[in-house]
């Protein structure tokens, strides 16, 4: 629903970088790999958290 606060596997804080990643790689047209490198999200366990995430707040909001 919301980006997890930490990486499931290693416990690194990744929520911190979500807004910038979303702005640059999802809404913008930058290469997601390069953005993650610049954000310092190095390990592939943390990278998959960002790459595979889908925000669902907008989807469930009408059914409140």
């Amino acid at each position, binding site marked *: 629903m919301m*980006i997890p606060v930490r990486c499931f596997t*290693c*416990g690194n*804080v990744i*929520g*911190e970088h979500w807004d*910038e990643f979303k702005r640059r790689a999802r809404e913008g047209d930058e290469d997601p790999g390069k953005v993650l490198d610049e954000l310092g999200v190095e*390990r592939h366990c943390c990278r998959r958290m960002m790459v595979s995430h889908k925000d669902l707040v907008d989807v469930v909001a009408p059914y409140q």
Partner: protein
Amino acid sequence: MTNDFEVEFIEPGERSARFLVRGVSPAVANGIRRAMVADVPTFSIDTVRFVENSSVMFDEMIGLRLGLVPLSTPIGDFEEGDVVTLALDVEGPATAYSGDLESADAMVQPADENIPIIELKDGQHLEFEADAVLDSGKSHAKHQGGVSVGYRHLQRVEVAGDAGEFEEQEPNILRGVIEEAAAEHADADADATDGDLVATDAFDNDLTNRYPGKEVEVHDVPDAFVFHVETDGSFSVEELVLRAAETLGDRAAELESKVAI
């Protein structure tokens, strides 16, 4: 055991660092690693009293997310079990961030300020009071100060001879940190000297890049370990290691006093 450890930083950093320790036995190295993960206490939100939560998430889900937010933990001023109260009040349309948490104690603050807690739509309201408790990683993983803490042997690379002249050389992958022992053959690095500490990332983790056309042998250096330590932001790497060593000393002292009757 009275010998001193020799500590040398290879990649210093606030939240992520690599350092070499010499003169430490494997048992002590692992003891320090485990102390960093489980014995160094950090603050983490443990109890939440909701005043209003009309967001799309249940109270429990928000409580879980809050527990994972790292909080700065100053050295020496608190004891295990101490409680600090934090509060948050955000009205939609807005996103509640970890930076919106207001702490009763200026020394205990969210280490990261841009972690989204929950996105609030028009008319939704989140208000709560939360208690952060100082506890160790032994009781709950959210209290772990060290993230991905590990160590490897320091490795020594020696050139054993030439590779066959017309042979296709296969990649020789090695990860960690090497101690230079064949500087005259290190083609890629002109000012290499014996005894240098080189991270393998410097030559793309492939020994054939550093010693082209050579047959190499890799040995572990006895009692020398390269630690890679990251923290969640509660404190710096240096503080984490010092506190871990302290708890190890405290436990040894406790054992000594209990055994001596």
